[in-house]
């Protein structure tokens, strides 16, 4: 490790009224792997996007090798020697590996119809694969390569400029298996040995100790601390605590009392035992009861998204049993799940939850058209209108205009429409996936209050990658880590225990002494 290659001083960035970055100082040394860790919305991605020219900073200074630079566009960033690899790299699936590496930087034969000089490309690609430990068949088409191989290609692609000194990786491992991770890490180490500095965003603490030299913890747009991996192992302070900070209690509605949870358990609506779905999740067991909220905490790639789809009949489970209100549950499709009384409030509400070009009323009734129509299947306009107005009032839709297109509402109000659509089905089990993704702070507490209200008459499962959300909302919480259930559903789980379970699995805990 040597001199400092990058200085970011007093960086500020706001989105509307939300301060995403607050006076951030950040240093990067030459030839180090520096991990940025923090929960959702901590500001780590924003910082990297400012460095790579995707966002423009509001205030502050960036110096590369001591020289102040202005980075306004991704092109400026590349000219300054900063290469960014996206979370889902965009490659051309019908071209081969080496063609993708040199995409846009091909050798052309001279002439009227300039033809790509494949032999020269091939030679350069061979040279690259000699330099770096990659075992990819570069003659294969990208569409036939695995996720990690694409990731590696994207990194090589960004390095085809000779003068790249800083590489940023945004959560590259979220969908990789452990073995695949290793090949990514070995490439990262090889790059480090050539003097390239790497900024690496991750959710998972255990990776930090495997590959990073130093790491910086972000929380709520602030830099909490920077330390080396060795320091962290010796440190007595809990990393989880540093990532989470103080709990914001007031956003969340009051939970069911602990004594009531113990003594007057609600009727068990759904009981899941040993449920598995391919590689996505394995041996998951829990039960959801009327009157309480079950929280499931899991990051991207933990399997919560697949789990929600299995419970709603979008995907069919591999093994395990689901018992719904005392009967074995076999779901062929979401229609069947709805008829049995299960409603999913999906993660991507704009795609999965709403027909954006249609008005609120159309969306509200869509999941239960039988109820909305009478004899011969004709829609009862007046009745649905009254019912819709009642539901809009319950979910406090703003503005409460049922004739407005769903696409014209804000994220929070769109979520309220989906919840109202669920209310219209009168389900016995509501499954929320990332209930407040893209929902502004103001609407958040309303959504939480609605979820709590729902739990009084039905069973509710909340799945989220936001640890605070699960902790603040759920009566019982469990966690998935890379498809494994690492925490049995328990009441009153401490926040840091939940976080540690979700970001590094339980067994890792002692090794890192967090």
């Amino acid at each position, binding site marked *: 490790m040597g001199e400092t290659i990058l200085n970011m001083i007093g960086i500020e960035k706001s989105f509307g009224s939300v301060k995403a970055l607050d006076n951030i100082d950040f240093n990067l040394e030459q030839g180090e792997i520096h991990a940025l860790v923090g929960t959702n919305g901590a500001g780590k991605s924003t910082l990297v996007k400012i460095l790579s020219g995707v966002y423009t900073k509001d205030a502050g200074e960036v110096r590369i090798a001591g020289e102040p630079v202005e980075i306004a566009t991704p092109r400026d960033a590349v000219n300054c020697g900063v290469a960014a690899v996206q979370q889902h790299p965009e490659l051309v699936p019908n071209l081969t590996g080496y063609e993708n590496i040199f995409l846009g930087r091909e050798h052309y034969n001279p002439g009227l119809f300039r033809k790509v000089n494949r032999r020269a490309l091939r030679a350069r690609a061979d040279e690259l694969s000699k330099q770096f430990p990659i075992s990819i068949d570069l003659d294969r088409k990208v569409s036939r390569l695995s996720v990690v191989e694409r990731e590696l290609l994207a990194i090589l692609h960004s390095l085809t400029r000779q003068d790249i000194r800083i590489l940023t990786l945004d959560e590259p491992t979220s969908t990789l298996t452990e073995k695949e991770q290793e090949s990514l890490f070995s490439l990262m180490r090889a790059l480090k040995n050539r003097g390239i500095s790497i900024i690496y965003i991750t959710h998972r603490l255990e990776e930090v100790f495997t590959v990073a030299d130093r790491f910086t913890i972000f929380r709520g747009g602030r830099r909490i601390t920077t330390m080396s991996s060795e320091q962290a192992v010796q440190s007595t302070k809990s990393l989880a605590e540093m990532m989470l900070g103080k709990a914001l209690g007031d956003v969340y509605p009051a939970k069911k009392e602990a004594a009531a949870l113990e003594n007057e358990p609600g009727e068990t609506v759904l009981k899941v035992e040993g449920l598995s779905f391919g590689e996505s999740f394995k041996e998951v067991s829990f039960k959801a009861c009327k009157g309480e909220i079950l929280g499931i905490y899991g990051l991207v790639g933990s399997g919560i998204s697949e789990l929600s789809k299995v419970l709603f009949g979008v995907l069919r489970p591999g093994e395990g049993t689901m018992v719904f209100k005392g009967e074995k549950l076999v779901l062929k499709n979401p229609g069947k799940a709805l008829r049995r009384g299960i409603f999913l409030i999906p993660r991507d509400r704009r795609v999965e939850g709403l027909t954006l070009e249609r008005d609120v009323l159309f969306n509200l009734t869509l999941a239960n*058209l039988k109820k909305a129509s009478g004899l011969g299947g004709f829609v009862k306009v007046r009745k649905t209108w009254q019912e819709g107005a009642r539901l809009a009032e319950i979910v406090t839709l703003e503005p409460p205009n049922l004739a407005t297109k769903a696409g014209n509402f804000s994220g929070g109000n769109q979520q309220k429409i989906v919840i109202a659509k669920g209310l219209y089905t009168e389900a016995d089990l509501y499954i929320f996936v990332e209930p407040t993704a893209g929902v502004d702070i103001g609407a958040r507490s309303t959504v939480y209050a609605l979820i709590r209200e729902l739990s009084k008459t039905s069973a509710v499962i909340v799945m989220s990658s936001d640890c605070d959300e699960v902790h603040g909302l759920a009566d019982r919480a469990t966690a998935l880590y890379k498809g494994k259930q690492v925490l049995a559903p328990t009441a009153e789980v401490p926040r840091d225990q939940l976080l540690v379970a979700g970001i590094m699995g339980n067994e890792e805990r002692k090794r890192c002494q967090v």
Partner: protein
Amino acid sequence: MPGLKRVSPLFIRTVAYLMVLCLIAGVFTWFAPQFMTAGNLATILRHLAADGFAALGLTFVIVVARYEVSFPGVVCFVAMAMGFLISGGLSLPLAFIGGVLICAGVGAINGIAVSYLKLNDMVSTIAVGSLAGGGAFLFNGGQSFFKNFVSCGLLRLNDAKFAGINISVYLLIGVYFVAWLILHRSRFGRVFYATGENPTSATYSGINVRAVTFWAYLICSVLMALVALMLMAETGMANVHIGSGCMMAAYTGVFLGAALFGGAGVPATFAGTLLIAVILNGFNLLSVPYYWSDAVLGVVLVLGIVAFHKDGVNRLKNVFKAKKKAQDRAVEISDSDNNLRLERVK
């Protein structure tokens, strides 16, 4: 409905449409005074029947956001089949039932291919259409059928009148009304629209998207039996090319209607088809050669889509702006770092 304070956009669009229709009628009357006679207006309505049914069938497929191009071939095939049955001495209702069954079969093939086998809708319906069109030759070696056509009462469908208007017009309006009830007033219609506009959210709302797509193709094809019937009644025979003209008319009717009324639907299709029938009739009276009519329809379709699209004019402006921008940028950025420009656009 309560809650509506402003003038509904639908009302504005309807007024605009009627104005366009009157304007066109006025122009034709100016140049060909016989346009505005009761006889000619009845003729327009009578000609509307065949194209109207074809456009109505297509509407169902367009609403689920798919395409269907097999219907001209299907009309030829089913017309020949019905002609074969009638010539063989079968009564008209029985022959028509036979035609409906054949159409349902073809529609089921289309529907299964597109929804369950997930084949490309264009390619598979082209294949089915040309199979049917070729199959039409099998009945009589390419010769027309006209035996028994008068005696079975087929021609009365075209000629008979009630209160001065042809029976076929009542049939058309009746079928349109039923289709309107289904598509716009029942829960089944909601399901069709939900499937076409966002199949993922439809699936998550418990709708069997594949089955809905299948039914759209089935309904579309079944209506083609009516198209064939109307064409046979109009021409007094069944030949192997009888349906080849309905492709352009149906697509123009549906898409012009959708442009005029902000989305495909039964009233929109009716409006679009009527407008086209008026234009074609007017050109006919002015003795414009028939080969001009397709070109005129094409122009009308494009103009209609641009003029009535909610930001069609803006988009047109943007195209020219983007062109200028691209030129500016091309000067600024040299070819060598092409990829960077791509990144920037992203």
